[in-house]
């Protein structure tokens, strides 16, 4: 490892070191998820996979005993019992009579897998997590291990208007190959960003839209005045002015309009403003963080004023359960943090009041999705199981980690249930997905067998502390630069 020593004090040097030590772990270690199974799909023909399992939980009707799932070209083409469904002669067969097939969990909102949660900029709608997702981040590997098949990666909560997020699957060497939905939504926060008061936060959030409106008004005025400043700016930035973008269109917004907006070709709108324009037009979903029940009020007001309530999902701190009636009235869906029990002390009696938050939303009839942002002990199976313990029906608890987030992300046709036409994602559990003793044995993503627990080097270490021979990374010399002992944790 002598070639690395000259880089030892730089950030890139460390990344290189880390990559080098991964590579030395064996030929299979090429990416976060790639360390388990090298897919064998070199042939040009449409890949076909048949998965036979002792039980298939479809989440689209009753579970099927001795079921089978056929995936062709990355899409599910048939789900049924083994007696009814014919296996194509050229399909690769995964036969696991002792296991339970499951559509996989859908992570509704997560700020992991990226290098940094938030920029210091207050209003940065032009940023995109595409540029910060790290395909070899441990998070994706860990998500796969917990049966999560797609995740909505959004920027963090410490913001006013953060960048755009995207839905990815936890497998692939590049962001492009992981991509499921590129423009999944934009992250905003109604809760005070660090250093802001509640009032300045609310003002900054409102201000972002007021700035947009003023910017568009000025653009129209310049156009009317015959000033081609915007065209020159657009050309200078090299933006495309051909096709649709070259035509002006009236502003399609519920809440406010800009008179004369049709004069402006779309390509002339500054890309710093364009994402918020898409929010106004209802083309870009919004994920709004609320750190307290009071923030819910701010969030709903801003959304209502700017006409994007229908496209907004609230990302809630557990204290926000107190705003459940207001949320119900507004008709928005919510994403809950992974600490499901809210605790507070009665200020007079000193008694602790514990509230199980999903139950409040379930009882109020608000669609809620679970999320798991912290560690793998609290992953989505655990969250859903806790809901069952608290008396939420099993179907609703499972939906909160599958079909509800799928619907929030606009992916109902693709993920969250095993049905014909859905993406070819199947998770094989050793038993019931919500049982504490069940583990994820295999994951098939888009018809490709990407995870096999028996070949998962790290799960073996987590389970019994041992690493199989030949997989132990050679400890690079002079690695202990950051004072943290993470060399064993790789």
């Amino acid at each position, binding site marked *: 490892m002598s070639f690395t020593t000259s880089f030892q004090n730089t950030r890139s040097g460390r990344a290189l070191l880390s990559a080098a030590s991964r590579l030395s772990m064996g030929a299979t270690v090429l990416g976060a998820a790639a360390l388990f199974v090298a897919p064998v799909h070199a042939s040009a023909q449409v890949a076909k996979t048949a998965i036979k399992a002792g039980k298939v939980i479809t989440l689209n009707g009753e579970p099927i005993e001795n079921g089978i799932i056929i995936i062709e070209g990355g899409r599910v083409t048939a789900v049924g019992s083994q007696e009814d469904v014919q296996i194509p002669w050229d399909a690769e067969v995964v036969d696991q009579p002792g296991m339970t097939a499951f559509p996989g969990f859908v992570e509704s909102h997560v700020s992991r897998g990226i290098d940094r949660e938030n920029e210091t900029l207050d209003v940065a709608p032009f940023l995109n997590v595409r540029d910060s997702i790290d395909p070899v981040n441990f998070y994706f590997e*860990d998500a796969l291990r917990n049966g999560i098949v797609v995740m909505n990666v959004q920027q963090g909560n410490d913001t006013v208007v953060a960048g755009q997020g995207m839905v990815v699957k936890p497998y692939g060497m590049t962001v492009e190959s992981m991509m499921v939905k590129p423009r999944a939504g934009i992250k905003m926060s109604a809760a005070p960003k660090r250093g802001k008061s509640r009032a300045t936060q609310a003002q900054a959030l409102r201000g972002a839209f007021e700035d947009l409106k003023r910017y568009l008004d000025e653009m129209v005025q310049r156009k009317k005045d015959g000033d081609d400043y915007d065209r020159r700016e657009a050309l200078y930035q090299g933006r495309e002015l051909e096709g649709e973008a070259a035509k002006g269109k009236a502003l399609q917004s519920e809440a406010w309009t800009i008179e004369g907006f049709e004069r402006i070709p779309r390509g002339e709108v500054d890309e710093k403003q364009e994402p918020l324009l898409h929010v106004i037009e209802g083309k870009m979903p919004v994920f709004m963080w609320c750190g307290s*029940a*009071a923030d819910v009020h701010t969030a709903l007001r801003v959304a209502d004023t700017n006409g994007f309530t229908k496209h907004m999902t609230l990302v809630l701190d557990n204290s926000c*359960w*107190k*705003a*459940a*009636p*207001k949320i119900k009235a507004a008709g928005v869906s919510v994403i809950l943090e992974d600490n499901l029990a809210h*605790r507070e*002390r009665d200020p007079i*009696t*000193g*008694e*602790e*009041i*514990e*509230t*199980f938050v999903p*139950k*409040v939303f379930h*009882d109020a009839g608000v669609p809620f999705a679970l999320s798991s942002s*912290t*560690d*793998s*002990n*609290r992953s989505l*199976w*655990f969250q859903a*199981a*806790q809901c*069952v*313990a*608290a*008396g939420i029906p*099993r179907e609703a608890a499972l939906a909160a980690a599958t079909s509800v987030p799928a619907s929030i992300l606009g992916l109902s046709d693709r993920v969250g249930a095993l049905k014909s036409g859905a993406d070819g994602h199947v998770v094989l559990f050793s038993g019931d997905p*919500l*049982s*504490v*003793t069940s*583990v994820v044995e295999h994951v098939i993503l888009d018809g490709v067998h990407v995870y096999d627990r028996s070949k998962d080097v790290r799960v073996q*270490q*987590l*389970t*019994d*502390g041992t690493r199989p021979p030949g997989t132990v990374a050679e400890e690079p010399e002079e690695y202990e630069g950051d004072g943290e*002992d993470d060399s*064993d*944790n790789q």
Partner: protein
Amino acid sequence: MISILTTLLLAPALQGPALLASSALFEHPSEAPLQAPLQATTRKGSQAAKADGDAPKNSWSVFADKVYTSTGSTLENALVVITDGKISAITPGASANDDSLKATTLTAGLIDASAPIHLGFESVEQSSEVTPSISMEYGVDPFDPRWERLVRSGVTTAFVPPLNRNVVGGLGILLKTAGPETLEGRALEGAEILCGAIGGLPSSGNRPASGTPNTFYNRRPTTRMGVEWEWRKALFDAAQAPAEGAGKDVDILQDVLAGKIAAFIQAYPTQDIRTAVFLKEEMQREGFGEIRLVIDGAAEAWREPDLLVRSGAAVVLPPMPGQGRTVDQAFMAANTAKVLQDAGVPFALSANDARTEPLGIQAGFAMRGGLTREQALRAVTITPAQILGVDSRVGTLEVGKDADIVLWNGEPFEVTTRAIGVLVDGVLVVDPR
């Protein structure tokens, strides 16, 4: 704002089983009072206020489809009868009475063998690193809401050790998690246990007294080696001190060497576990006595189970971390409990004051790591009772034992299961109805 207020008022209605812990129902004559004055009990002046209240109902019958007794047997359709706070009959194949409490399964009340429920750093005596005669009696608040959290999760007995920032922190205290709001009313007469720590934590925050102005951080030890040295010095000094008149601290350490008081030593990584075992063996070699060793927080116990077998130590495992790492940079494998089970090391699980997942879930994680339900159950009931010397009173469902019972709505330790009811000394503290 209005909606917030109204939902606040609705809050109790939205909860699960009502928790009765702080109601006036709890007054019953306290057991043999401890000799020391107990400051915490007078904080709310509740004793005087409730002096002539009614005694709480402590006779019930509980029916469940399945009763896990912790003695190795599982009874189907069993009726457990409780009379005056004790279990008076257990009848399998019975049917429920009209007024029976009902549950899917029953277990004995869970016992958390390491629940540091006290004021945290405010409970660390800074004047010395070796404070054997300090007792947690003076640092525990029965009004701390974490007690209610423990009860709600099914824990009925908890051992409270001092925080791990002193080398020899003092005597721990064993309490029921509910009952009279006085320490003497909740205390259990168990083994006397001296607690301390080995490793990086006692020295963390200490600074050598040079350069900077003097603060209480300027104290020894400042390294792992120094921590070990403090232990050895304390025990050597005690062994060489006269049997009488050398002071309370020395008396306690002499009792530790004589095996009358157990030594409950926190050690996470394997190097610290080794240190604890070698310390015990050194004292034995020197002829000072045989220490009864309990290793707390033994996250890396899986690395050298044979060493633990050789030492005869019992083990208390910390909560299962999400990515393997516990405090003090130890790595806890998921099958740690299973390794100890197979090696025959007595071990208990703990949830460490319920900041992470509660004890029942820790038992579930141990099952995920390879234990059977029965083995996991023992690790949170009878084994901690034995380690703490209270197995004659708690830890199993048997006639004559304290009626500490958890009512579950499914198979215990599954995440999909919850403690719907809890009885402590026959008093219903979490109501399943």
